[in-house]
């Protein structure tokens, strides 16, 4: 490297400039559409602003108002309920499937593909499909229930059951993606560990708890972080499936913020403050998980 620099002045200048040119387009987009908006968002949150006339600086008023906004915190609580109920399933079922899918079974590729399929379908289509299947009067699920001698359930017109369907749809839509993530983690565990354990007389279940789980920690941590953020910002799926209803029983925090900003009164400043709160909460949770898991390191 040094030699070349000394020999050719042009090359060294080119070598200095070229990397900047390479990152320039990405950098510009990140700066313009993420960094600058983040700063603007923080600024907007200190203003009363409808997006049309000039913003009026109001200091922390929006935050004070947000603090007392019962409906906001209710939607926040609902989101938490949704996240906390979904998380164990969204981490457990893919792990279970991944363990089945690394066994020596026939048509492994086909089965993996089948389980992966739903995660390629957009949240909108997932929402539409579940809305169709869980229809009150003509939905297939109610028909299957009636075959088993059970009464019809008004799935999407009752709060609790609507939440149940939303969670079910989420699990269905995300399992394949996390299954594949787990598979790549499982594949990195040397088979010899299991063989040695088998020689020592350990059962497969012991092997799972004593070998698989500890060594899989980085992957589990990755799945935890990714699914947590993904669940917390859920919007499209709910919009297509329940529109946040019935009433507000499945209205989550992103929908609440979107409606505050873009529907009706268009309170851009206030909605920005709510966004900031959401951002801080999500970042805090992520950091806490990082700390608790020591970044997913294997001890």
């Amino acid at each position, binding site marked *: 490297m040094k030699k070349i620099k000394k020999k050719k002045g042009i090359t060294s200048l080119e070598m200095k400039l070229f990397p900047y040119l390479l990152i320039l387009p990405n950098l510009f987009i990140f700066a313009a559409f993420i960094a600058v908006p983040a700063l603007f968002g923080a600024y907007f949150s200190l203003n009363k602003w409808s997006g049309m006339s000039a913003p009026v600086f109001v200091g922390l008023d929006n935050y004070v108002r947000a603090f007392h906004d019962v409906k906001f915190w209710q939607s926040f609580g609902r989101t938490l309920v949704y996240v906390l109920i979904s998380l164990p399933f969204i981490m457990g079922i893919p792990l279970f499937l991944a363990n089945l899918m690394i066994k020596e079974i026939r048509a492994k590729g086909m089965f993996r593909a089948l389980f992966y399929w739903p995660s390629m379908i957009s949240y909108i289509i997932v929402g539409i499909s579940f809305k169709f299947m869980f229809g009150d009067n003509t939905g297939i699920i109610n028909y299957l229930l009636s075959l088993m001698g059970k009464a019809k359930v008004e799935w999407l017109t009752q709060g609790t059951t609507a939440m149940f369907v939303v969670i079910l749809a989420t699990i269905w839509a995300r399992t394949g993606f996390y299954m594949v993530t787990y598979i790549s983690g499982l594949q990195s565990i040397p088979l010899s560990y299991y063989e040695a354990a088998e020689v020592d007389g350990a059962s497969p279940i012991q092997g799972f708890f004593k070998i698989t789980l500890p060594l899989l920690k980085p992957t589990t941590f990755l799945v935890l972080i990714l699914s947590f953020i993904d669940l917390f910002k859920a919007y499209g799926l709910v919009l297509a499936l329940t529109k946040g209803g019935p009433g507000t029983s499945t209205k989550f925090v992103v929908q609440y913020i979107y409606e505050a900003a*873009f529907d009706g009164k268009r309170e851009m400043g206030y909605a920005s403050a709510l966004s900031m709160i959401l951002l801080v909460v999500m970042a805090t949770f992520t950091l806490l998980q990082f700390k608790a898991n020591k970044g997913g390191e294997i001890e």
Partner: protein
Amino acid sequence: MNMKTRSNWLTYTVVIFLAALFLFPIFWIVLSSFKSGSEMFRFPPTFLPEKFTLDNYRNAFQKGNFGRYFFNSALVSVLSTILTVIINTMAGYAFAKYKFKGSNVLFIFFIATLMLPLEVLMIPIFHVVKFFKMYNTFAGIIIPPAATPTGVFLLRQYFLSVPNELIESARVDGASETRIFFSIMLPIAKPAMSVLAIFSFMWRWNDFMWPLLVIRDVDKYTVQLALANFSGQFSVDWNSLIAMSVVSVIPVLIVFLLFQKQFVQGMVTSGMKE
């Protein structure tokens, strides 16, 4: 042996049962899409279509203007994917193979953008898009989402595995940096670039938030935006909606079948999150 066969049977039973459970929604939607208007809502429902019909599909394209949305989605997804692959490969290469002032800080900045999902920035982004005169244009859903931290990271990791000697010897031979990038590095990076292309296409095709924020005219709706709107209407035209849903999954399905191995083996998939 006996125990092994039994546990094998158990595995197959569980796998097949779960697979059936997972496939059922897709299966049911596809079957329903071929049923006539009234048959779709008969109770008790028919399993297979009594009279196999393509009416739902015909209506969706003729009355529903679905072809237009489909075209918009295809255009946006393809162009955005091309842009993504080009600029993310460039950035990934720079971070892997050059030591330049601020490279660490910039790399951390790139990765940190993962922590700022569109959902928490929708209000300021909406105004920035307006500022750049991209509101209600395709450019507004092609350009901003094209820079992805995941893509940069993926390509960087890939280029890190390419030996430096390759570059050094090309330099000794007098090749310019530009030339090294285009004629030596790009061909080597093809596998990683195609993985990124696959995922990028899927992200853009399935994306709902960007179009929701940026697009206003119904003429410019993407498939996802159109379907979300239709499903939210007071009286839903289920026949067209179900047919459109089925068609909307086909492009992603084709991409998947073409590149099934990359998808399912989990080679690069871990953490492939937008």
